[in-house]
C-alpha cells in the first residue's frame, strides 16, 4: 500500500509530519503525530467537533454530515471520518478547552468522619512495626521466611503472603531499613495477612496511612485522599475525566473503546486522570502517590469496565449485559495506577449495565436501605439512575436522559463554566429576558440549570406552548422563525461573548423535553411497578452535582421533578464518592454495599410499553396529566390570567 506524508499544523503554529498509509483516519494520523484532536462523539461523525482544514492535497471524506457547504468549500473535513489517500497538509484549529469549574472548586465541604471510626476495629488493613534479626552465618534463614516468622511470632499471623513484585524489592528494603520496617497488609482472615507494602522504616502510631475514595463519573472524576488511621478526608480533588475527548456519553465511549486500540487508550486516559488527581491530592499533604495503599472506586458500569480494561460492548446491545457487576479486587500495578504497586483497588459492586456502583454507593451513603420512609433517589448525570424504596425493598432503573442537561445536544448549550447562563427570568409583558451568567461575564451559552430555568420561564410566559412549540405570534422580536423552526433569542450578538445571537431553538426544546420526560417517566414507572404512585413518596433525594444548582421550583414547573412540597427534596451532592468513602473506612460497610447491590431489583424499562406510555405522557409541559402538577397548574393560571 502506498505511503503518504501528512503534515499537521496547529493553531499555535506547531508542525508535525507523519507517514501514513492509504486509508488511515486523519484522527489516527494526528494521534501518531502527537496532536490531540478531540472526538466528543467517540468518532462517530455525529458532533462535527473534530473538523480540520485540508490546506494542500486531498483526503477522502466518508461522511460530511456535520459540515456546511461553505466549510467543505474551505477544505474542512472531519478527522474521525476522513482518510488519507495522498500527501496532504492539515490545519488543526484551536481545540475546545474545557475550562475548569468543578463543584469541588466551589465548595470542598468538610466531610465528617463516620461516628465510632476506629482503625483497629473498622479496618481489615493493618500496619505493624517489626524488628527483624539480621541474618548471619548462624542464621541463614531467607529474607521472606524471616519476615513471615516474625509476623507469626509477634502477631499470630499464620499465613502471610505477598506479590512477586514485592519479593523482588524486599531484600533491598530490609537492608536499607537496617531490618527495622513497617508492614502494611490486609487481613484476609483473622490469621491471614496479605502484605501490600513494606515500609523502609518503623512508623509511629499517629503517622497517616493513606488510601483513596474515588468516583469515576462519565464527565468528572472525584478523588478523596483519606488517612485510614483517623478516617479523615485530608484532601479532595476533582478533574474532568480524560476520556471526554473520546466521547461525551457512555455509548460514544463504548463505541470508541470497541475500535482498534480504543480500549487501551481509554483505560490509559482514565488512569492518567486518577494519577494526576492523586499527585495533586498527595502534594497538598506533602505525601506521595506511592504511599496510597488502597482505593475504593465507584462509577457507572461502563466507567468501571473501561477502568479495568474489560470489553464493554455488550453493555450497549440488547439484552444489555455487563461483563461483571462484582469486579474482583485488583492492584494498582495491574491497572497502571501510580499508587503503592500492590495497593488494593476495590471497584464496588453494581446492579446492571446502567445501574452501576455509583448508584449502589449512593444508596449506601444516603442510607435509603435503612430508611423507614419510602424514598425516591435520583442521580442525574449523563444518565438518570433512579432508586425507589426503603429498608424493606429497593427497585431501580436507568433512563437514558442523554446529556441535554449538561448542555450537549443543544445548539448554545455548554457546561456550567464561566460564561454560561445559569438562570433566566422572562418578563411576562415584554418577553424580555434577564439572565445570570457564571463568572459575571458576557454570556457564551447556556448550561443545564440555565436551560431548566429558561424552559420554565418560556412556558409560564407563553413563549412556549405546552408541547414546546415557540409561539411566533407573540409581539416581540425575541421570537422568530429560525433554521430549525421557531426560536427565542436569549442574548443578542452584541451582548454575547461569541458575537452571535444566543438562541434556544425548537430542536433544543425537543431535546430537553425528551430528557426531562425520560426522567419523569422513570419515576412514574418505577412507582407503578411496585403498585404506588408518586404521591406515596415520602422523601426525595437528589444526588450528583446537577441537583446542587438547579432551582427546584423551575424543575417542577417543567415537569422534571414531581410536584411535592419543597421540604421533601434533599440535595445530597456526590453520594457516589461518599459511598466509596464509607466502604473504604469500614469492612461492614463493604459487606453492606454488596448486600445493597444484591437486594436492588433492576427494572428494564425497554422491556415493555409501560415506559413509552409514561414517556409520551411526560413529553409535555409540565405533563399531559396536569392534575399531577397542582402548583404548576395554579402558577400557569395566574400567569395567563
Amino acid at each position, binding site marked *: 500500500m502506498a505511503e503518504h506524508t501528512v503534515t499537521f499544523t496547529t493553531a499555535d503554529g506547531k508542525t508535525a509530519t507523519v507517514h501514513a498509509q492509504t486509508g488511515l483516519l486523519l484522527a489516527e494520523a494526528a494521534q501518531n503525530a502527537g496532536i490531540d484532536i478531540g472526538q466528543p462523539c467517540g468518532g462517530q461523525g455525529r458532533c462535527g467537533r473534530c473538523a480540520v482544514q485540508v490546506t494542500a492535497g486531498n483526503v477522502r471524506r466518508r461522511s460530511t454530515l456535520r459540515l456546511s457547504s461553505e466549510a467543505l468549500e474551505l477544505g474542512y473535513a472531519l478527522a474521525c471520518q476522513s482518510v488519507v489517500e495522498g500527501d496532504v497538509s492539515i490545519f488543526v484549529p484551536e481545540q475546545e478547552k474545557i475550562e475548569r469549574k468543578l463543584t469541588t472548586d466551589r465548595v470542598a465541604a468538610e466531610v465528617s468522619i463516620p461516628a465510632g471510626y476506629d482503625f483497629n476495629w473498622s479496618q481489615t488493613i493493618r500496619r505493624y512495626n517489626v524488628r527483624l534479626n539480621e541474618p548471619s552465618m548462624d542464621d541463614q534463614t531467607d529474607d521472606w521466611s524471616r519476615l513471615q516468622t516474625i509476623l507469626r511470632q509477634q502477631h499470630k499471623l499464620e499465613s502471610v503472603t505477598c506479590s512477586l513484585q514485592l519479593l523482588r524489592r524486599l531484600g533491598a528494603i530490609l537492608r536499607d531499613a537496617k531490618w527495622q520496617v513497617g508492614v502494611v497488609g490486609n487481613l484476609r482472615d483473622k490469621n491471614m495477612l496479605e502484605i501490600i507494602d513494606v515500609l523502609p522504616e518503623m512508623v509511629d502510631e499517629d503517622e497517616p496511612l493513606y488510601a483513596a475514595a474515588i468516583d469515576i463519573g462519565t464527565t468528572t472524576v472525584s478523588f478523596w485522599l483519606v488517612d485510614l488511621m483517623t478516617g479523615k478526608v485530608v484532601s479532595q480533588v476533582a478533574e474532568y475525566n480524560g476520556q471526554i475527548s473520546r466521547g461525551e456519553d457512555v455509548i460514544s465511549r463504548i463505541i470508541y473503546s470497541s475500535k482498534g486500540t480504543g480500549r487501551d487508550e481509554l483505560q490509559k486516559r482514565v488512569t492518567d486522570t486518577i494519577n494526576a488527581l492523586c499527585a495533586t491530592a498527595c502534594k497538598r499533604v506533602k505525601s506521595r502517590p506511592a504511599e496510597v495503599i488502597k482505593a475504593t472506586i465507584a462509577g457507572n458500569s461502563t466507567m468501571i469496565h473501561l477502568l479495568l480494561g474489560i470489553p464493554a460492548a455488550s453493555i450497549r446491545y440488547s439484552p444489555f449485559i455487563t461483563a461483571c457487576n462484582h469486579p474482583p479486587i485488583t492492584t494498582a500495578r495491574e491497572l497502571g495506577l501510580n499508587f503503592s504497586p500492590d495497593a488494593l483497588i476495590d471497584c464496588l459492586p453494581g446492579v446492571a449495565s446502567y445501574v452501576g456502583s455509583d448508584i449502589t454507593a449512593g444508596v449506601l451513603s444516603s442510607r435509603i436501605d435503612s430508611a423507614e420512609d419510602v424514598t425516591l433517589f435520583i442521580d442525574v448525570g449523563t444518565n438518570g439512575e433512579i432508586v425507589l424504596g426503603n429498608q424493606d425493598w429497593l427497585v431501580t432503573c436507568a433512563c437514558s436522559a442523554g446529556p441535554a442537561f449538561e448542555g450537549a445536544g443543544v445548539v448554545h448549550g455548554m457546561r456550567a463554566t464561566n460564561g454560561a447562563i445559569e438562570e433566566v427570568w422572562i418578563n411576562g409583558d415584554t418577553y424580555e429576558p434577564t439572565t445570570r451568567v457564571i463568572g459575571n461575564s458576557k454570556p457564551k451559552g447556556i448550561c443545564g440549570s440555565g436551560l431548566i430555568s429558561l424552559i420554565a420561564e418560556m412556558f409560564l410566559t407563553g413563549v412556549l*406552548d*405546552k*408541547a414546546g412549540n415557540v409561539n411566533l405570534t407573540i409581539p416581540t422580536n425575541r421570537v422568530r422563525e429560525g433554521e430549525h*423552526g421557531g426560536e427565542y433569542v436569549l442574548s443578542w450578538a452584541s451582548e454575547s461573548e461569541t458575537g452571535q445571537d444566543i438562541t434556544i431553538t425548537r430542536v433544543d426544546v425537543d431535546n430537553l423535553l425528551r430528557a426531562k420526560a425520560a426522567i419523569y417517566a422513570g419515576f412514574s414507572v418505577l412507582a407503578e411497578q411496585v403498585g404506588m404512585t408518586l404521591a406515596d413518596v415520602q422523601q426525595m433525594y437528589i444526588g450528583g452535582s446537577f441537583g446542587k444548582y438547579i432551582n427546584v421550583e423551575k424543575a417542577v414547573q417543567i415537569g422534571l421533578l414531581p410536584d411535592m412540597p419543597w421540604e421533601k427534596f434533599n440535595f445530597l451532592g456526590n453520594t457516589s464518592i461518599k459511598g466509596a468513602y464509607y466502604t473504604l473506612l469500614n469492612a461492614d460497610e463493604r459487606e453492606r454495599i454488596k448486600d445493597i447491590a444484591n437486594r436492588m431489583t433492576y427494572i428494564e424499562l425497554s422491556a415493555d410499553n409501560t415506559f413509552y406510555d409514561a414517556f409520551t*405522557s411526560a413529553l*409535555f409541559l409540565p405533563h*399531559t396529566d*396536569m392534575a399531577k402538577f397542582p402548583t404548576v397548574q395554579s402558577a400557569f393560571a395566574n400567569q395567563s390570567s
Partner: protein
Amino acid sequence: MPVEIPKDKWTGKVRTVTLGATAAEGGTRTKSIVVGGDTTMPFMQFEAPTAHTPVIAIEIKSRKPDDWSSLLEETWGSVMSDPAAWAKAAEAAGADMIVLWLSLEDTADDAMRAVKSVLAATGLPLAVYGPGQVDKDNELLVAVSESANGEKLLLGICEDKNYRTIAATSMANGHLITARTAMDVNLAKQLNILISDMGLPLDRVIMDPTTGALGYGMEYGYSVMERLRLAALQGDAMTQLPMMVTPGFETWKTKESKVGVGVPEAWGDWKERAIHWETLTATALLESGASIVVLRHPESLKRVRTAITELMTA
C-alpha cells in the same frame, strides 16, 4: 335461570359536536349532523342507547387525483374532475357528509371556488382539509374559513406542530377543526389541551387518532381509540371528543385493494376484496368508538350503513 348481564357505569361523557350550519343557524346547509354524546362503550345499547348514530363521510378531492385505484375511477367516473359534481354524486350514494381535500396546486382562489361550488351542489355538512403542507394548509384554510364564514365547516388537519393558525381562523369564523395525532393516547390528549389553551371550545373539535388498514396496524389504532374512549368515560375531559377516522384513505393504499393482477388466486375477486377491505376496516373502527368514518367507495358506504343500522338496533 335468568342471567343478569353486568352493566358498566361511567361518570364521563363524550362531548356532543354539531357539524354544518343550517339557514336558521347562520349557514346554508340543509341539515346539520350531531355526533358524540356517548355515555358507554360503542353500541352497548343495553347500558345506554347510543346517543347519536355514527356518520359516514365520503372523501373527494378538489382536483382529480392521479394516484387512486382504477376501481374508484370506474365507479365515480367523470365527476372526479369536478368537486361539485363529485359531492353531488356522493350525496346521491348516501353520504352523510363530504370531506373535501384541497390540492397542493390550488391557490387560495381555487380553494375558495371549490368550497363554494361544493357548498352549492349539496346541502350536506362539509369538511375541508388542506393538502398537508404546513404553509399551504394555513394559506388555503384561512381563505376558505373566511369566505365560508358561519357554515360550521370542519377544517383540518391540525397537528401538534401546526394548529394555531387553523384553530384561530376557525375560532374567528365559526368553524370546527380536526385534531390529528399519530396513534397515541397521550399525543391525542396533548393536542386537545393545546387547542383548548388557545380558547377554542372543545365542542368544536373532532379528534382523528389516525388509523391503519386491516392488516396494516388497524389493531393498534383500534386499541388507542378504545383507550381514548375509556379515558373519556372515566371522566378525563381532555379525551371527551368524538373521533373521526379515515379507513378509505388507509385501505385504498394497501396492495390488496390497489393491485388486481399478479396476486395469488386465493385472494379472490379484486373489486370484492377491495370493498371488503374498506368495509371491514371501517366497521371495526366503528366498534372501537369512531363517530365518523371517511370512505371512498359508494358500495362500501352501503355496506357500512347496513352494519351501522344493525348495530344500532341490536
